[in-house]
């Protein structure tokens, strides 16, 4: 490429410079700053902080919890995905909804529900006189995280099950394999990409989780970071912990990319795929129902019921209407600007990826996921250290929190804009150009009206996600700022289950809206796809 051509390319693609600059400036620079700060300490001190048994224990606990949750979510998601796609079980649609609904229960609400159910003062003891030991530590964190994150795997597996070519299974059966052999030898290997995609989301979730491990008091990197921050704030050690967490996250991303390489299975034949034959379960269907309803009972009914039970308690004490109003307003005034900002950042990135797909634009597109993959506690700490050191006027401002939300949730905003852009093919803009519009004029008069709906969906996703966000809010909220999530968590942390209930209920309502948008989008997406064929 000549210099002139390179200049033309840059001039034609100027619009991505803005989000790239914002993301690099907002995520990478604070992280680099954090690294520099940690390296400025005495090498001896640094060595003592990092190389010790506690680090090994934290690493063991964090990895152990991640692996445990991956196994736990698989045990829940695989049977449920299979039941809802490959069997003729009546009521499959309802079961599918039950598999998605747990997304309306954030991890810390689930942890709160488990804590408020078990133990001497728990719901079980109070209503049935049944005293089970209070859940905490590894078991508690494992159960809470598995129940609240398995839908990520469930959704990925469902799509994969539906995309399998039935001819492969039929061939294997014709070659004399039993149903079980076919499942293990043909179906499971083809589900690997879906396992990796869903598993990555869950692993990132576990690594970034703060609410569950802090409520369950389980010693992971995140929990140690929180202790450092809350109790004895040792900046250097906190920075070291954050960096180790970042390295662990990076390692998992690399591992995932390694495993995924060469794993993209495609149907080799052309033409439309037949839909798979659906197994009849016979009397086994009762086992199917029992499993699905059991999962739904634990992941949806239990938290909803628990919160409902403690609401009565709260109502008896007098509903904290003012507190609820303040918290709702604080949540909204941080989440709404973040939603707009994230959608505006996502638009040029998605535009570049859709219109000029190439290896380097895919690289640019990945930056949207940078903020998402960075564990929120580490990200928030980096922002604090950076803002204190470099831009003190931004420290503990609403603006910084909004920025952090937008960068963290930008990845959620890219998807809807991207699919909307596919509805506005490049020829439309070219036609507008040949009819006398400037590049920007063509975009605004033709493409923008067509992606407006997608932008609104993006904003809805980011808004609702930010409403229930905890770790970023916990570290970055301005003094006296109390969101719904912060209130739920801090009351639950002090075992004040009654006081936590109204906030938890509001959070669940907001999250249910999120699930609603998600399902609506999936349905319209499917309709658009079927209308095109």
């Amino acid at each position, binding site marked *: *490429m*000549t210099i*002139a*051509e390179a200049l*033309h390319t840059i001039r034609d693609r100027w619009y991505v410079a803005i989000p790239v600059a914002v993301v690099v400036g907002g995520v990478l620079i604070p992280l680099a700053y954090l690294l520099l700060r940690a390296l400025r300490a005495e090498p001896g001190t640094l060595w003592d902080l990092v190389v010790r048994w506690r680090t090994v224990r934290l690493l063991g606990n964090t990895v152990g919890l991640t692996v445990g949750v991956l196994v736990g979510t698989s045990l829940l998601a695989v049977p449920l995905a299979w039941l809802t796609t490959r069997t003729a079980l009546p009521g499959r649609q309802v079961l599918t909804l039950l598999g998605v609904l747990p997304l309306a229960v954030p991890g810390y609400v689930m942890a709160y529900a488990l804590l408020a159910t078990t133990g001497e003062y728990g719901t079980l003891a109070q209503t049935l006189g049944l005293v089970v030991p209070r859940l905490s530590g590894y078991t508690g964190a494992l159960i809470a995280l598995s129940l609240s994150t398995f839908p990520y795997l469930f959704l990925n597996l469902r799509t994969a099950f539906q995309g399998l070519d039935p001819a492969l299974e039929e061939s294997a059966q014709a070659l004399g394999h039993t149903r079980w052999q076919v499942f293990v030898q043909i179906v499971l290997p083809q589900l690997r990409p879906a396992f990796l995609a869903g598993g990555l989301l869950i692993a990132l979730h576990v690594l970034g989780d703060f609410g569950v491990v802090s409520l369950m008091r389980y010693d992971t990197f995140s929990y140690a970071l929180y202790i450092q921050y809350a109790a004895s704030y040792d900046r250097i050690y906190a920075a070291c912990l954050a960096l180790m967490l970042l390295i662990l996250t990076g390692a998992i991303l690399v591992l995932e990319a390694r495993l995924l390489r060469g794993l993209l299975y495609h149907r080799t034949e052309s033409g439309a795929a037949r839909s798979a034959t659906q197994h009849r379960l016979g009397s086994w269907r009762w086992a199917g129902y029992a499993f699905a309803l059991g999962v739904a009972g634990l992941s949806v009914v239990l938290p909803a019921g628990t919160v409902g039970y403690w609401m009565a308690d709260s109502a008896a004490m007098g509903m904290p209407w003012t507190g609820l109003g303040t918290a709702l307003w604080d949540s909204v005034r941080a989440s709404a600007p973040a939603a707009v900002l994230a959608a505006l950042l996502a638009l040029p990135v998605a535009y570049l990826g859709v219109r000029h797909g190439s290896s380097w634009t895919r690289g640019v597109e990945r930056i949207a996921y940078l903020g998402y993959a960075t564990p929120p506690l580490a990200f928030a700490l980096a922002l604090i250290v950076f803002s204190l050191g470099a831009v003190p006027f931004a420290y503990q401002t609403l603006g910084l929190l909004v920025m952090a939300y937008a960068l963290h949730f930008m990845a959620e905003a890219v998807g809807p804009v991207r699919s909307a852009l596919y*509805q506005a*093919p490049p*020829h*439309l803009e*070219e*036609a*507008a*150009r*040949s*009819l*006398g*519009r*400037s*590049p920007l*004029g*063509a975009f605004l*008069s*033709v493409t923008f*009206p*067509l992606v407006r709906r997608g932008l609104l969906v993006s904003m809805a996703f980011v808004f609702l996600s930010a409403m229930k966000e905890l770790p970023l809010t916990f570290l970055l909220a301005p003094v006296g700022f109390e969101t719904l999530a912060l209130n739920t968590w801090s009351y639950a942390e002090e075992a004040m289950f009654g006081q936590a209930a109204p906030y938890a209920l509001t959070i669940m309502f907001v999250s249910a809206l999120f699930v609603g948008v998600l399902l609506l989008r999936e349905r319209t997406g499917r309709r658009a796809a079927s209308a095109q064929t």
Partner: protein
Amino acid sequence: MSNPILSVQDLTKRFSPDAPPVVHDVSFDVEDGEIFAILGPSGCGKTTTLRCIAGFERVSGGSVSLRGERLSGPGVHVSPERRKIGIVFQNYALFPHLTVLDNVAFGLNEGTVADQRDRAREALEMVGLGGFEDRQPQHLSGGQQQRVALARTLAPAPDLILLDEPFSNLDALLRQETRQEVRELLKSKGMSAVFVTHNQEEALSFADRLAVMRGGQIDQIGAPEDVYYRPRTLFVAQFLGRTNLLLSQAAGSEADTPLGTVGLNRDAKGTVLVSMRPEHLALEAPDASGGTRATVVGRSFKGHDITYRVCCHGNEYLVHTDNRHLYEPGDTVVVRPLEPAVVLESRSTPAEVPSGATPEPEPEE
């Protein structure tokens, strides 16, 4: 070629510096009021050429000029919106969020809004779609959408319009009729147009002149009859319908071919490949004196005429005749050339190509 409206000189386009050019040294002129076709198989660079003329692609070499004004060239790139060149896309690219009238008025910037709407209405009347102003484009049939696209392109009165595979999204029945209508419309407006197509029949019937393109280069430019009856290369001969190829020994104005001695359209010497269209051969009963004997191996009756497959020295040839005489498979006949054979300057060595009828061109969509 005194004063062409569009002049393309040595146009070259590469998408990356190391990649081979997609369009290589393409030159042609379009006269005022002329309909010019670029015909070629998919991937030959014809659409890229069109996009370079429209200004959507920057040229890597050569130039594009409109009415003598340089639009693309070394250091020059006039942006598409300032070229006064309209384009009709294969999928029409109608704006789905605008009504038919707003679509057509989109390119009109001069005068009041009322003026613009009046002009858009006129353009719609012109394509026979008066009364459709308030419809949404996606509720129209394919043919109607195409006419809206045409009206939208013509409304701002561009100097030149470009059409990218304009008829390929229409079904076969509608295609021929629409083609005729569009041609009459363009001619009545005195519009100059460049269109690209992979359909040889479309190019032959729609264009005043055409260029046959392959592998990024133009093989031949000429009037449809010229290119059809006097193909310059093997590719052109094959791409514009079926023909008979004869590996021959030329000696001046005549050549010794597998079908006997045949006159040539131009002098040649040594081994040459010549082309003979099926309609330039005739069959006679073998009692006639002399001539090359062949055996009829098949025939397809098409009502107004018949195509015979005949076998001669182990190769099959096609003969397209009227139906005054009927021969049965197995009959011995004499093959008689009616016109001089066309000497091909092939890019490949003639020895590689066997004599005989060319295969049916592969259908392309």
